[in-house]
Structures are given as structure tokens and as C-alpha cells.
């Protein structure tokens, strides 16, 4: 099951050139672009591992593509995303976020039912991948 999170996730995977153009858009708007990776695809897993520092002072997006490729070398079997942080007052939040790398196989999510008091049933989802310990989740 292909993970649909962030921008462009219903499109075919982005090429390096696509990434460059999108990152350049963020840079031109004055947002700090950074690269993050994770092997926990749960939608509420907001804080991914940072790959290096956010790039505050790189005027050209070639640096972002360079870092994405460096991250792919190390964490090619995990999810990698590019995010753009807007530091301007009153915003101070993520403006863009898109996945640029995904594992070869994505097993998807399982629906978990929990029996509560009375006849209450609580529903939640769990990634099949996260049953394995960190670092062993994807081949």
C-alpha cells in the first residue's frame, strides 16, 4: 500500500529534477528546507529523524537534492521527506512536506479493535512494519 502523506503523494514518485524545482520554490519564498527520514509510517508520527541541519542559507536547491541523495545512500530503505519551514512571524510552521523516497515494499496498516468498558470498541491503526524493531522494519 503506497503511503499517501504530504504533498504530491498521489502523483508518481518525484524525480530529482522535480525535487529541485519544488525545493527551489520553497527557498525562493525564504523557507528553510530540510531533509528527514523515518521508518515509522504512522500518520501521527510527526517528528522524523533529521538528516543534517535545516538549510537556512543555501540559495540554490541543488544542495537539497545533494543531501537527499546522501540520505538515500545511508537510509535508502526508509521513508525520506523534504520539509520547508517558514520562520516568518505569525507562521512559524511547516509550509511544505513531501516524500521523496520510500521503501521497496510498503506492507500497509492493520485495523486494531480494542474492547472497552461496556460494549465500547476503540479503533486504531497500526503499521505492519512497526511490529519489527527499529532498523529492521524494511528490507
Amino acid at each position, binding site marked *: 500500500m503506497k503511503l499517501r502523506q504530504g504533498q504530491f503523494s498521489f502523483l508518481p514518485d518525484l524525480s530529482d529534477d522535480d525535487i529541485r524545482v519544488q525545493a527551489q520554490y520553497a527557498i525562493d519564498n525564504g523557507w528553510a528546507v530540510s531533509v528527514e527520514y523515518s521508518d515509522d509510517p504512522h500518520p501521527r508520527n510527526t517528528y522524523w529523524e533529521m538528516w543534517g541541519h535545516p538549510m537556512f542559507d543555501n540559495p*540554490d536547491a541543488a*544542495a537539497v537534492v545533494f543531501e537527499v541523495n546522501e540520505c538515500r545512500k545511508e537510509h535508502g530503505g526508509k521513508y525520506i521527506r523534504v520539509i520547508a519551514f517558514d520562520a516568518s512571524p505569525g507562521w512559524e510552521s511547516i509550509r511544505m512536506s513531501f516524500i521523496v523516497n520510500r521503501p521497496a515494499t510498503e506492507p500497509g496498516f492493520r485495523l486494531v479493535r480494542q474492547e472497552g468498558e461496556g460494549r465500547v470498541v476503540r479503533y486504531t491503526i497500526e503499521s505492519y512494519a512497526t511490529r519489527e524493531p527499529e532498523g529492521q522494519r524494511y528490507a
Partner: protein
Amino acid sequence: MTEDADTDAPTRPTHVDLAQSFQESGVRDVLRELDETLIGLEPVKSRIRETAALLLVDKARRQMGLATETPTLHMSFTGNPGTGKTTVALKMADLLHRLGYVRKGHLVTVTRDDLVGQYIGHTAPKTKEVLKKAMGGVLFIDEAYYLYRPENERDYGQEAIEILLQVMENNRDDLVVILAGYADRMDRFFASNPGFRSRIAHHIEFPDYTNGELLHISERMLAAQNYRLDDGARVAMAEYIGARRGQPHFANARSVRNALDRARLRQANRLFNEAKGPLDADTLSTITEPDLRASRVFQGGLAVDRLDGDRRTGQAMSQAAE
């Protein structure tokens, strides 16, 4: 319209008008600016004109589908201190930007300190950080020979060199690297790092300025600050340049600039001591002969001029050690 032979792909032009693309790209402006703002440096200007012509032709060939590879644009600027290497690098970045060989056209100036780390594992991220910052523009490495220290085999400079070479080769579309330094030391640097020599296509030599050119430069510098030399001061300045050249740590235009800074200091002091009553703008902006004649250079020697700020102390020290 009987001719219908043009069956080629319509996107590819069959003719290029070099003069027109010369006009449109704005290269003419950069070259004219170069001619107007830089005094002397004829060999450098002609090399830059040649490079611009090559890139224009290359661009036209690419439009017609004749060339596919990005030409190697890494350069080395060699010359004595104060001969305008950084200034030309700035213009070069602008030129390459207008020709579309770099996307942003900014210049990032670094020295060894910015590239080489203090401890194991510090160098690679530091160098990469600088390279990332320079992407889309021009990376200017001043005094590049300091990167390589043959006397210390565990020096981290070698690591920075390796990363540089790798990026210079793999990210040729993303950045242009310009190495700068004194001619003899750069030669030794290239001799011990053959990888660099072969990756750099353009070696540009910066000649020393002649005395006349330096006088011209000094007047240009003063005019930019709304100062001028009176007739006596002009003669003194010409003599100053002649005398200064023979003394150690002569740094061409930079020496001239420092001399002028000190002359302005003396002028201010003189006005302060002598002035009785209000001064007009002309008096405030004229440098006179005594302002220059007071210089120690006329007393013949830098033995007394040890604190001359012509060079950064590091350079002076390393020169002394040689």
C-alpha cells in the same frame, strides 16, 4: 513558400545569431563594466573575453543539439596580492550567471579555515556545508595552496581536497570553483595534487600593475570617496608608488589603498590642527603633498614600517618563515 526542406525538429534553430545572443545575454554589459572599472589587467580581460566567446558559442551549439556536455568551468587565478583576483571572480560569477552556466550567480569566498576542520570527522561536514552554500554560484577559494600541507601527513586538508575534487567532478552543473593564490605556490600545489590541475580548464595569470596604472587606480579610489589629489600630491603619489614597489610586502592595489587611508588620516589631522574658521568642501576633499610625504616609505624602508597593514598578519608571518 516553395521550400519545404526544413524537416528537422522545429524546436532546434538552424541558424544562430551570435551577435544577437551576445546582446540578449547581457554579456556585453559585463565585459564593458570590466573594461571600465578595472584598470590594466589586459591579459586577464582578453582571457575573460575569450571565455565568454567560448561559452556563447557553446550555448549556441547546445541549442542546435551539437554539444551535450557542460564544459568544465573551474578556474585558477594566480597572481600577486592586490592584483584584483577577488574583484574579477565577482565579475566572473556575474558573467557565468548571465550566460546561464550557474543558476544564481552568487560568490562564496572561503579560505582554508572555512573548509578544514579541527578534529577527525569535522572536515567533511564543514566542506560539504560550504559546497552546498556555493551551489548555483561560484566558490572562490582564496590562497588555495594552504589546503595542502605536505609537512603534516595527518593534516585534514587532504580530506577537504578529496571532497572538493569529487563535487567538482560530479556536480559540475551546480557550481564553479575558482582557486586563487600566488603563482609559485599554486604551481607547487598543482604539482602535488595532479587531480586538481586536470580538473581545471582555465588558468588565468594576473600580472602586476605598472606604476602608471597604480596612480590611475589611486585616483579612482579617491574619486569614489569624493577625495582628490592636488598637483603636488599627484607627483608625490607617483614617487610613493615607485618607492613602495621596491620595499617588502608590496601588494599592488591593496598597498595603494592602505597608503591612501593613511593619507586621509593625516589630512584629517592636518585640517584639525591648522584650520582656523570654517572649511569649504574643496579643502575637506583635497589631499595635499605633505599628507603623502609624511609616509615612512619616503624615509626609505619598511624596517620602521613593520606594522604596515598591507597584508594580513598570517601571510606576513608565513612569508617571514620561508
